[in-house]
């Protein structure tokens, strides 16, 4: 016999289901009057420092059909690479930057949209730098546990040295994490849950 490890197990995940908006985006479905704003609606304001970007995209299922009932959250550093978090100990992030955004996909088109700023690079655990990226978390009916992925920027010289991208064995799949700049400052990042272009997801 040895001593017991007194750890307890994480609560099992369950799908967010089709009615996630009731709790997370009530104004989006017209259940107004309870909360002033849906949380996560704004990452930036006019005083936020940084290069403005717009992120749009859809989440596709195995048949190529966009999900109409997905909810996406993003989390990112400010333009200097600091997270606006209480456990960010490297310095104080821009107080005008929220860092976290939440968007329900459009019921007709499946499109999501975030207005933000381009994040700065942040360190990896071994001291190397990670290329600028935005963490994505996707939930929906039919998704049993929230999916973590990341969006990187095209034409970013540091992508080739990014330690996370470097861990992807099948190099052809790296492209699934690189957004497309459709016009200056406008980035498109589609997520494919399954199929030929299945997005890289992280167990992280």
């Amino acid at each position, binding site marked *: 016999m040895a001593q017991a490890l007194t750890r307890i197990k*994480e*609560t099992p995940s*369950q799908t967010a289901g089709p009615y996630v908006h009731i709790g997370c985006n009530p104004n989006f479905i017209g*259940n107004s009057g309870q909360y002033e704003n849906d949380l996560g609606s704004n990452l930036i304001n006019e005083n936020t420092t940084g290069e403005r970007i717009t992120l749009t995209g859809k989440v596709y299922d195995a048949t190529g059909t966009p999900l109409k009932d997905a909810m996406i959250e993003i989390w990112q550093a400010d333009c200097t690479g600091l997270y606006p978090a209480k456990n960010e100990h490297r310095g104080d992030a821009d107080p005008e930057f929220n860092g976290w955004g939440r968007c329900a996909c459009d019921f007709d088109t499946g499109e999501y949209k975030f207005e933000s700023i381009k994040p700065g690079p942040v360190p990896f655990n071994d001291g190397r730098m990670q290329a600028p990226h935005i963490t994505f978390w996707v939930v929906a009916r039919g998704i049993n*546990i929230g999916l973590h992925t990341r969006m990187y920027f095209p034409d970013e010289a540091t992508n080739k040295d990014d330690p996370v991208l470097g861990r992807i064995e099948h190099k052809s799949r790296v492209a699934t994490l690189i957004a497309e700049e459709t016009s200056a400052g406008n980035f498109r990042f589609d997520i494919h849950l399954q199929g030929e272009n299945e997005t890289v997801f992280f167990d992280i």
Partner: protein
Amino acid sequence: MTANISKPAAGFYQRDRTWQPPAHTPKYKTSIVRSPRLAPISLDTTISEITGPRFDHNIIGELDNDLIRNYAKDDGSPIGERIIVYGRILDENGRGIPDCLIEMWQANSAGRYRHLNDGTRPPLDPNFGGCGRTITDANGAYQFATIKPGPYPWPNGPNDWRPSHIHFSLFGHAFAQRLITQMYFEGDPLIWHCPIIGSIPSKEAIETLIAPLDLANTIPMDSIAYKFDMVLRGQRSTYFEN
């Protein structure tokens, strides 16, 4: 605002993927086309996942954790069994997590959601919205008042029913801890027939989603209580890298 001085940059325990539901669970049909088939890339948490958004207690309105009253009109009151749900948010080390935002949503006592896409037969309750939120106290404790949601049929197999349940969205202190789950009620015979619950591999894990009736904490002649603790990923206490 004082910073919460936890250890900087200590990683989180990896998720136990044998305990959590896998992505592809064919009895829950929608998962078939919405499940990744390639292996996820396993990585230790980085600062991008160790950090996460925090929410101030001042965003919470007075009635946000009272679903009996927060949508009621004038002197109205929702129909159904009045309940209190209370518990703690813990980490895997067993410590309470303060300042966790908890958002909850549910059907009314007839099993109908206040959602424009729910066109099922049971009636809406004019005094019930089914939406609430709260933030845990310094010990990780939370509570809210509501009406026990009803079970309802849903299109999956030809005759599938969801047991009574409340949805929870949880934020810890790290984006790696982000979790959405559902709470079920002790003694509900539909639990063991539900394909969504059946996505969880073990009976032991499923039982952690079933809230026991707590008669000792009932409010006599008013509301009965259910206790529901939830556990988020824990942070390593050893950190010798670099």
